């Protein structure tokens, strides 16, 4: 293979940005599928945490309904945190994250694809299971669409901001507590708007206003968070 072939090949053969994202996404989804029994864990955690509240407060549905939105969001937040630890951990250990950083492609874009895969595997299931948990806390079935929408959008924002914390704490032993300490205060706006949207949905009222604010945060996160996560990943590779 001549030198010309080596150097020129670099540009002509380069896959498009869309292909790059598709490959990164497909890889993470395939890996998750190979270990699909682990996908249940955040959901199980969510269910258990939700169950603790009636046990700790009251079995009366009438007493649970007022706090249902808050309980759902706290449980969702904690499960999301649990899952975040593993967003970059394996890739950091086996050197694949390093290869991403050295690929000559945008690390920001690759991490965005990874975060998207993470959300598809954790946020979406959470959003779909949440109406069941809400029903167990006294919520009407009619509230289901609102619950799904608010938690789905909220978990997008959570995955994005959590990715930053996950990247910053790469290589830190027992990073769970630190990751929570970093992510939770920064996630307060998500919880405030998300819980408000869920609460309105439970009451059967229009939840458009808080959902729009939530979506605005998610969009802001979409543009800025992968950038910060990429900076954090590069710092961890130094």
């Amino acid at each position, binding site marked *: *293979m*001549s*030198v*010309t*072939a*080596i*150097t020129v*090949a*670099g540009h002509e*053969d*380069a*896959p498009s940005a869309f292909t*790059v994202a598709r*490959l*990164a996404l*497909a*890889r993470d989804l*395939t*890996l998750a599928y*190979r*270990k699909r029994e682990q996908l249940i864990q955040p959901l199980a955690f969510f269910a258990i945490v939700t169950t603790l509240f009636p046990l700790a407060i009251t079995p009366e549905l009438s007493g649970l309904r007022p706090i249902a939105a808050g309980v759902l969001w706290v449980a969702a937040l904690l499960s999301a945190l649990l899952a975040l630890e593993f967003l970059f951990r*394996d890739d950091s250990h*086996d*050197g*694949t994250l*390093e*290869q*991403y*950083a*050295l*690929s*000559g*492609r*945008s690390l920001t874009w*690759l991490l965005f694809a990874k975060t998207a895969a993470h959300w598809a595997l954790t946020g979406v299931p959470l959003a779909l299971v949440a109406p069941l948990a809400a029903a167990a806390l006294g919520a009407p079935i009619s509230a289901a669409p609102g619950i799904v929408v608010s938690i789905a959008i909220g978990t997008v924002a959570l995955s994005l901001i959590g990715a930053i914390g996950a990247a910053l704490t790469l290589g830190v032993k027992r990073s769970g507590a630190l990751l929570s300490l970093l992510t939770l205060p920064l996630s307060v706006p998500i919880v405030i708007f998300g819980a408000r949207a869920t609460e309105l949905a439970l009451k059967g009222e229009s939840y458009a206003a808080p959902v729009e604010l939530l979506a605005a945060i998610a969009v802001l996160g979409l543009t800025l968070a992968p950038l910060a996560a990429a900076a954090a990943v*590069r710092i961890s*590779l*130094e």
Partner: protein
Amino acid sequence: MSELSLRAENLHLWRGERHVLRGVALEVTGGEVLQVTGTNGAGKTTLLRALCGLMHPEEGRVVWGGRDVRDDLATFHGALIYLGHEPPLKADLTACENLKYWVGLRRRITVTRIASALESVGIPGLAERLVRTLSAGQKRRVALAGLVLLAVPLWLLDEPTTNLDSEGQRLVGRLIEEHTGGGGLTVAAVHHELAVSPQRLRRLELARA
């Protein structure tokens, strides 16, 4: 066409308080292999990581094709492959999938080409085997297949012969010979002498502080 060159000028790098790289300078041009030796802790890995831009030297710079790599890190990365101690493979993917996702991110490849690359490194039947079922030596060969598939000019290899038997070490030598024969450059940190013809070989010895 042999204007491909990698040059490091006066690299100084501290890790915490250790002055690991103390004014390292080197030059490799197309068709050459730079063999970096030194005891453990002498800074071989640090040098390789500084060369590929993962680490920032406090002083000095790295020049690729006449340009400071910091000016356009993305293009520089597009022209190199860095293989660390561990082969960058996911245990739960097959060898073929690993190569598809690793190499395919940077260059369009087909399953046929992957298969022929695996054959050229001596593990033809392992394409559909999960990497977790492979031995350390086989994993190393999968990584070498990736090297072949990527076809980039600059190879930065950190102990490429790890976990390979003598036949595997000859394989590495052969791959490097073919690469440099085509005008490529290789910088390899090694403990054992590379099985490469002496006229291509340059040497750099790093000493511990």
